[in-house]
């Protein structure tokens, strides 16, 4: 099934209007040599058949809706209104709101999203979204380099290793220097920065779950006139002092914990928020309030002169399509929870994670790697190879013990807990871990 409405008669009539007889004539301007290749693809399916096929594939996976896995993605409960609202065709099938008169729905939703991100981070302005946390980090650092006109970057090893890898790829491209500072006892050590450093990056809670004290780094960075890029899990901002309050210039992160499904890692969205003075350096879309000719409030895309379609080679970024729908889900999620519900979810997550850690470290050979205080994830050193522990747990229908990259040490696994885990879930995992490790 191909979704084209054309009947054979339609095709004939339309070709005739063009003075043509055959569809091939529509491709007469293509070189003959390459025309009409045989494509080796499976035969077409009806909707019923494709859904049966995909359901069979889905049955080959074990859903991880109660995963104890973290590392940038966690299972959170998503209220039923959110898929119902976000899947309304108008949100789903619109594109970038170039025509504001008929796009107030998306525009206002973005404006509200920007406000929420500014509130969470305690910074002045957010853009409309970026691809993911890693891209947000890369864009945040490039922004800092543009602003400071420097080419040196220092990143803490506490930043998600995959984010750092993406950052490295982006920075290599523009010839910037990236230096990584290793964690000491699970925390970012204090240090000073030279005047070649334009951006200083740390994450809190860091990749191992530990809550950092960012004050010394921020002070040192500002002393060197570098900008601070602060990577924060947005759920942590329900309870923890926000980047803006610590003095950070730029906050970035991944929106998944704001009620986006895990989707095997994507799509979700990246957020970026900055201080006022950096607004015109922001990459991507920005929505501004304004008014129409009748004086009614309305919203438009603003400051497009930063963007590729106007500025081309000199644009702040090449980003075009962002992650509007998943960001909208995040905004709906925050709206549905409100400040109290948001704090309660975070609190439940913290409480569960601490309860779980307390149990797991009592297992023989298990050691807490993450220094306290930690948030809702923590790393353990296990007495056995982590991949096999994860596999043995999976056989018991449990998803836990995400392997942590070697750079942090041997046999380290990450665990997380959220509001989705009840006492019995924790108990089941502890039980299984006991069996698996014994």
């Amino acid at each position: 099934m191909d979704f084209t409405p054309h009947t054979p008669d339609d095709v004939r009539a339309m070709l005739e209007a063009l003075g043509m007889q055959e569809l091939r004539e529509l491709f007469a301007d293509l070189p003959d040599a390459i025309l009409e290749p045989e494509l080796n693809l499976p035969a077409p399916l009806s909707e019923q058949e494709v859904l049966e096929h995909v359901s069979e594939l889905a049955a080959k996976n074990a859903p991880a809706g109660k995963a104890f896995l973290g590392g940038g993605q966690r299972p959170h409960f998503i209220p039923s209104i959110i898929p119902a609202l976000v899947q309304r065709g108008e949100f789903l099938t619109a594109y970038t709101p170039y025509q504001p008169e008929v796009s107030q729905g998306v525009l206002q939703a973005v404006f509200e999203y920007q406000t929420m991100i500014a509130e969470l981070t305690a910074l002045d302005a957010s853009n409309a979204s970026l691809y993911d946390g890693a891209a947000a980090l890369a864009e945040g650092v490039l922004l800092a380099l543009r602003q400071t006109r420097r080419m040196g970057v220092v990143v803490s090893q506490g930043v998600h290793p995959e984010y750092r890898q993406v950052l490295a790829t982006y920075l290599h491209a523009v010839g910037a220097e990236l230096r990584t500072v290793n964690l000491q006892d699970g925390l970012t050590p204090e240090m000073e920065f030279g005047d070649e450093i334009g951006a200083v990056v740390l994450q809190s809670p860091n990749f191992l779950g530990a809550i950092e004290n960012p004050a010394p780094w921020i002070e040192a960075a500002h002393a060197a006139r570098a900008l601070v890029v602060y990577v924060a899990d947005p759920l942590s901002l329900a309870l923890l002092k926000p980047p803006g309050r610590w003095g950070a210039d730029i906050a970035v992160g991944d929106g998944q914990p704001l009620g986006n499904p895990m989707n095997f890692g994507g799509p979700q969205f990246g957020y970026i928020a900055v201080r006022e003075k950096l607004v015109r350096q922001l990459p991507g879309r920005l929505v501004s309030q304004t008014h129409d000719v009748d004086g009614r409030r309305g919203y438009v895309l603003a400051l497009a002169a930063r963007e590729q379609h106007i500025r081309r080679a000199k644009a702040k970024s090449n980003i075009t399509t962002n992650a509007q729908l998943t960001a909208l889900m995040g905004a709906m999620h925050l709206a549905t929870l409100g400040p109290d519900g948001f704090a309660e979810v975070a609190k439940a997550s913290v409480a569960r994670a601490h309860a779980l850690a307390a149990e797991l470290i009592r297992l023989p050979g298990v050691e807490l790697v993450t220094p306290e205080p930690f948030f809702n994830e923590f790393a353990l050193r296990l007495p056995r190879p982590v991949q096999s522990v994860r596999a043995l747990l999976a056989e018991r229908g449990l998803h836990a013990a995400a392997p942590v990259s070697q750079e942090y040490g041997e046999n380290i696994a990450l665990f997380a807990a959220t509001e989705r885990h009840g006492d019995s879930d924790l108990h089941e995992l502890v039980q299984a871990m006991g069996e698996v490790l014994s």
Partner: protein
Amino acid sequence: MKRDFPVLFERSRAGRRGTLPPAPPEVDLASLLGGDNLREAPPRLPEVDELTVVRHYTNLSRRQVGVDTNFYPLGSCTMKYNPRVNEAASALFAELHPYQDPDTAQGALQIMYELQGYLAEITGMDAVTLQPAAGAHGELTGMLLIRAYHESRGEGEQRRVVLVPDSAHGSNPATASMAGYEVQEVPSGPDGEVDLDALRAALGPQVAAIMLTNPNTLGLFERKILELIDAAHDQGVQLYYDGANLNAIMGWARPGDMGFDVIHLNLHKTFSTPHGGGGPGSGPVGAKAHLAPFLPLPLVKREDGRYLLDYDRPQSIGRMRSFYGNFGVMVRAYVYIRMLGAEGLKKASAMAVLNANYLRKKLAEVGYRIPYDRLCKHEFIAQPPGGLKALDVAKALLDYGYHPPTIYFPLIVKEAMMIEPTETESQETLDEYVSAMAEIARRGLEDPEWIAHTPYHTPVRRLDEVAANRKPVLRWRPEGED
């Protein structure tokens, strides 16, 4: 009676609750998290009940149009129908965690593996990464492949320039810059195609790559493409294909067969995944064998009937994104390809091109100017008759229930209206659209006041963009706070 539509924050009342989560365990946060680390004041999120959330977003959506509501021939964006089966299918995979044991995600990995293969087949490339999160992200990935390739041959320092036609999509030069290159524009000839002589003149050992869209943003197929590519390859220059426009030629020709070295695709355009008001999308990149070693980490491979994530790729440019890309979007595209098969993809492109040419012809008949009036592919450029402005025609269309075309792009055509009807629209829809365009032209020429003040029937009317740019208001604030 038309009042300002409230911002959700304005509907807030202190203490009002939406969804109630289960009561959290009683714990002392200060002792668990460290008193100094705690937030002093909660973020000021709206405090609203669940019905208010539902009404707010439902009514916002009613202030929004989409493909599901209106004909939406936004050029360069391929606003085709987004089948709902895609949504149903991708929901089956929503609860997979990227770090769960890959043996518990074999179905997901199989989809990725097969999709890599299908896209390679459709584009004529040797290997595909699904990692990029959108077209522009794919462009950057592709350009970094080229860069890594030149570096691997010791030509990294020497090849500093990327050639981009002046008709190119803005993301192309922006990408080249992000990839660390100097951008040099190549002019288009009077026929709307790249000026081959100018291009030849620009070629040289300093050139790393040419970024091309074909059909280009005028909707024209670059007829001298094979010569052009030969000339470039002769100079060691790599050919980048911006595949955002693949909807024009799917199944009819393959960029790989034309000689392109690398390509990105927009799953959210060509492969029918929804645009979501601006994303998320997915921008897979295909590469010829000589570039394949540089593809980002990880790829999905198959070994002994198992699917696994291959990180053992020493020449890789590294990562472009966390995890494995926008998997949920991949499922949608996978379903689409499986439903259409080879013949369906070919038919989709044929109907897209048929629709575009038919519309081009009919609009010309009612007075619109067609600057390059020849066989086009999936889209074409029109200009309003007389002294009418593209902007005014666009605004008038809103009152007729249409989403306007892309306007003022590409930059090389004055008052450009870039029209891409896509294959999922019927002849009747095109005919009705032509009638509306004819009426707008006639009325607009007769009554310049009328057209200058369109639209009249939209939720808001023309908005003050100048004010928004001069003094942007990027967030809501409570009254009294500035």
